[in-house]
């Protein structure tokens, strides 16, 4: 029997999905849908937009208003959608290459405007769909098919980037911490402004194999053992934090939202009439 969430929110006839066995994306997608379910939104008012890559195939499986765009451009398309109909809850699903390399400019400017879009990055540290090239989040020294001798690029901290650019809600979870994804996505969608949620995924097929990280289970165990919630980290000593990465809700603030601000301009002229 299929789960209630799949029955209610997935385009069942579009399944099975294209993701490899052991990929973390399915867990993340389910956690997002769970958040939407718990928020109780009508499916008609949700619009999910994606770019290109493994993660960006997600909207095709979902029974919402969905748009699969060009590489890196999801946020620019989403901006047009949100401007045209501010009542829609616009969610962007993107990957590390899609959002931080080719789409990096759109990311920082959407964040800067604080337009009410919730962006969820499926970060698997690699270009999966094209076969394992290093991405802006591949850790320095790690390998990809285009970094056969080790990656010499410094990797982005996506959450720091989004926060610095002006996002008003920022958080990180992992495919292992599925409940946290749901919590962050719920808060992100409810935030009236630009929300950025990084979900650390696993790619055993390319990233794992290239870098001898073991199988999918080992990679999930790595996420379990090395992620520390920011609340717990505050009371932890430096030694315990060494080599670990933070998850949890990193930042939130209330600031004017872009489409609200634009509507104020329209209202000036409506009063004049």
């Amino acid at each position, binding site marked *: 029997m299929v789960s209630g969430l799949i029955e209610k929110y997935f385009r069942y006839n579009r399944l099975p999905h294209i993701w490899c066995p052991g990929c973390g994306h399915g867990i993340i997608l389910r956690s997002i849908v769970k958040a939407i379910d718990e928020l109780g939104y009508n499916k008609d*008012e949700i619009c999910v937009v994606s770019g290109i890559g493994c993660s960006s195939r997600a909207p*095709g499986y979902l029974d919402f*208003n969905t748009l699969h765009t*060009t590489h890196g451009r999801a946020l620019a398309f989403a901006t047009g959608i949100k*401007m045209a109909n501010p009542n829609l809850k616009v969610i962007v699903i993107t990957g590390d290459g899609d959002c931080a390399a080719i789409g990096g400019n759109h990311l920082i400017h959407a964040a800067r405007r604080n337009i009410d879009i919730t962006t969820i990055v499926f970060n698997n540290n690699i270009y999966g769909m094209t076969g394992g090239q290093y991405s802006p989040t591949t850790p320095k020294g790690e390998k990809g098919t285009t970094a056969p001798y080790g990656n010499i690029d410094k990797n982005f901290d996506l959450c720091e980037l989004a926060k610095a650019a002006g996002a008003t809600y920022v958080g990180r979870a992992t495919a292992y911490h599925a409940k946290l994804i749901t919590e962050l996505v719920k808060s992100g969608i409810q935030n009236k402004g630009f929300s950025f949620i990084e979900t650390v995924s696993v790619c055993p097929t390319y990233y794992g194999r290239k870098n001898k990280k073991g199988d999918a289970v080992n990679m999930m165990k790595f996420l379990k053992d090395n992620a520390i919630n920011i609340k717990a980290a505050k009371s932890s000593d430096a030694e315990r934090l060494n080599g670990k990465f933070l998850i949890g809700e990193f930042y939130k603030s209330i600031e004017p939202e872009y489409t609200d601000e634009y509507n104020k301009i329209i209202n000036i*002229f409506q009063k004049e009439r």
Partner: protein
Amino acid sequence: MDKKVKLMQGNEACVEGAIAAGMRFFAGYPITPSTEIAEISAQKLPRVGGKFIQMEDEIASMAAIIGASLTGLKSMTATSGPGFSLKQENIGYASIAEVPCVIVNVQRGGPSTGLPTSPAQGDVMQARWGTHGDHPIIALTPSSVRETFDLTIRSFNLSEKYRVPVILLLDEVIAHMREKIEIPNEDDIEIINREKPENDIGEYRPYETKGERLVPPMASYGEGYRFHVTGLIHDETGFPSNSPIVAEKLIKRLIDKIEVNKEDIISFEEYNLDDAEIAIVAFGSTARSAKSAIDMARDMGIKAGLFRPITIWPIADEEIDELSKKVKTIIVVEMNLGQYVYEVERIAGKNCNVIGFGRANGELITPDEILDKIKEV
């Protein structure tokens, strides 16, 4: 209501036309010589309840207008050469996903940054083939400020009717030239809106066509249809497919929806062609010089006339073929080193002599120069 008579430049007439056509969303990026279109849109759109946004780049502007159009707003962007190159990625997206939108390209000297403040007609081929793959496109090109107003409306109408990106090719002269124009009454303007689906929710197939009409009805996001749109080859449901049969069917329909409706889409002007032995083919600001040259030639007893394509893509092949059977020589005058001339030659070359006369140094082609060319022939 009295008719409004105004002195305005082409770029302003473009915005006036767009708003009259129902434009309610504009996304753009500053670039000479099209910037006034963004500036005037920013000023006028909120007054009619519309929206303007200055995006972070040209690519994003093109993406944003597609997003807004899918959400139900008539949308436009404007740019010039370098920006037009950047927009090509998502112009292809609008073509395959069949999203109505208007792209204004005020042509300036190229290649690259080229001559930012000088006129050119060097993007004729880019307008047709700028984005990769076989795709449908419509491109219109006006010769006056008033015609810019009219053709902007027509661009919206054609894009809505055929669900295709329409490119309005201005050149720097038409964009910045000021002329007196009479703005028609609202009631006298024909407005075409996209066909909406009548299906029950759940039975809507976003790319399903009915009968001979090759254009599928279009729902908007948020209306309850919950459809999927992709830039991948897709079937009638809108979902991706790798099937060669599906690919063949989709691409053929995209091309055919323009091809079989050419009669409706193509427009042109003929001037003194009845008894002409020499025909000039020219468009945009160059056609104005050509008209003067033809008047001068006629005064000298030379039987010259003008064929002015207003729709430059698709090309008026049947009309040019007919023309080539009546005249001895066709001279294609364009502000580039030979683009449209190759198309004209392809159609007319078997029937008459076809000569190209062009320039790409940022200067207008003058009536005297065209007259000299006529005399040479």
